[in-house]
């Protein structure tokens, strides 16, 4: 987020993808003869990977916490096996795909507006 402006909804995904595309952009710029700092690019792409892994890990931990809060007694009593009650990672692929689709919609709208402005 920009300081003072709320929101991490699709921004994090936008910047994550922008960071992951940096190596590809770096190759294209290098081919065009532009000087590229591979170290800086690797740092940003690495940070983006860290963010993605962090979100995935948090979802997994939260999934685990649900079990311990809601059903740990049942597991402890041996009434049900752990594998049945574990809800898994709470970060669902569906949510990620939903965020990706929203980002795609926003970026597409920008492109449509841009072409509309150019035609005018």
């Amino acid at each position, binding site marked *: *987020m*920009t*300081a*003072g*402006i*709320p*929101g*991490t*909804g*699709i*921004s*994090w995904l*936008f*910047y994550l993808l*922008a*960071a992951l595309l*940096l190596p590809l*952009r770096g190759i294209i710029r290098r081919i065009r003869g532009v000087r590229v700092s591979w170290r*800086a*690019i690797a740092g*940003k792409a690495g*940070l983006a990977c*860290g*963010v993605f892994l*962090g*979100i995935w*890990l*948090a*979802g997994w931990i*939260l999934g685990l916490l*649900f079990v311990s809060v809601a059903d740990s007694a049942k597991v402890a009593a041996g009434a049900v096996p752990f594998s049945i009650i574990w809800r898994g990672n*709470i*970060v669902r692929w569906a949510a990620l795909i939903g965020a990706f689709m*929203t*980002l795609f919609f*926003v*970026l597409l*709208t*920008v492109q449509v*507006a*841009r072409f509309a*402005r150019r035609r005018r």
Partner: protein
Amino acid sequence: MIEERTAPKTVPVTVIVPAYNEAATLGDTLRSLQSQTAPPQEIIVIDDCSTDGTGDVARALGVTVVRPPTNSGSKAGAQTFALPLVKTPFTIAIDADTVLAPDAIEKILPAFNDPNVAAACGSVFPRRIRSIWERGRYVEYLFSFTFYKQIQDEYRAPLISSGCFSMYRTEALRSVGGWRTRTLAEDMDLTWTLYQAGRAVRFVPEACCYPIEPHNFRFLKMQLRRWSHGFVQNVRLHRRGVLTVPFLRSAVAVTVWDAVVASLVYLILLPAFALLLHNPYILLAYVVDVPAIVVPVVVGAWKRRDLGRALVSMPSFFVLRTVNAVFFLAAIWGEVVRGRKFLLYEKGH
């Protein structure tokens, strides 16, 4: 052997410091400018009709002081008043409550080796990190300057060249009319105007500045009102122009989407759904993005060797984020729905 210390050579830079009743903080700002490893050629303080002796503080430190005939009403007005007095090829704008790292000017100057670069900004960190609001802002800055802004710079489109400390090519600044008073975020207005004029803006993370951030809710309210209204005003003003600037157009669209939708989700939808569906697990959405915040903050704090304070400050960030959402929705309501442009400049640091 006697080691002879010589004063560092000045660089062709003029610093403009707009100041209205800033006697308490101005001295630190000026001393930080005078002790730069690359000191500026001239420092101009615009004493905007202060009543607390701001001009005397500046004069005592040997800098140029100018005083408009009447209060200019805004920071932008005071800065533009001083622009005709600048004789150097580069101009720095700095707030009167901001101090620079000793090497800030030396670090930011090489960004202008590219003749197309018209503006450059550095990293910002609160000078005091004590209250909940300062701590929340510290996390915001760590996140923003470690992650988002660095990626924006890789794509050559920082969203904003911060008003508290930025360097400009004087010729570029004059060509766009200096700082304009038509929005409450004159720095964002200037940055986007420069892009549309085909000029480049850079972010130099190593050039650090330390402003005083709002320590209580009263000052925070004034600052957030200015920032949120300023952002909405700039989006409306430049909505066609930014479409011509690659990456910036996408970054602005994503920021607008998030600012509006995330605010609605945070303040209304999440609690409403949790109540309607009798499912408290829905409230986990408040924390599921924590790693997206924590990872860049930890990396940024690690580099500053300030990890402990950053981690302790994390909860404050979530409070500030909610407050940001309230102010942003209020700005949307006022500017877009009611059509009332808010242009009262309130100093909230």
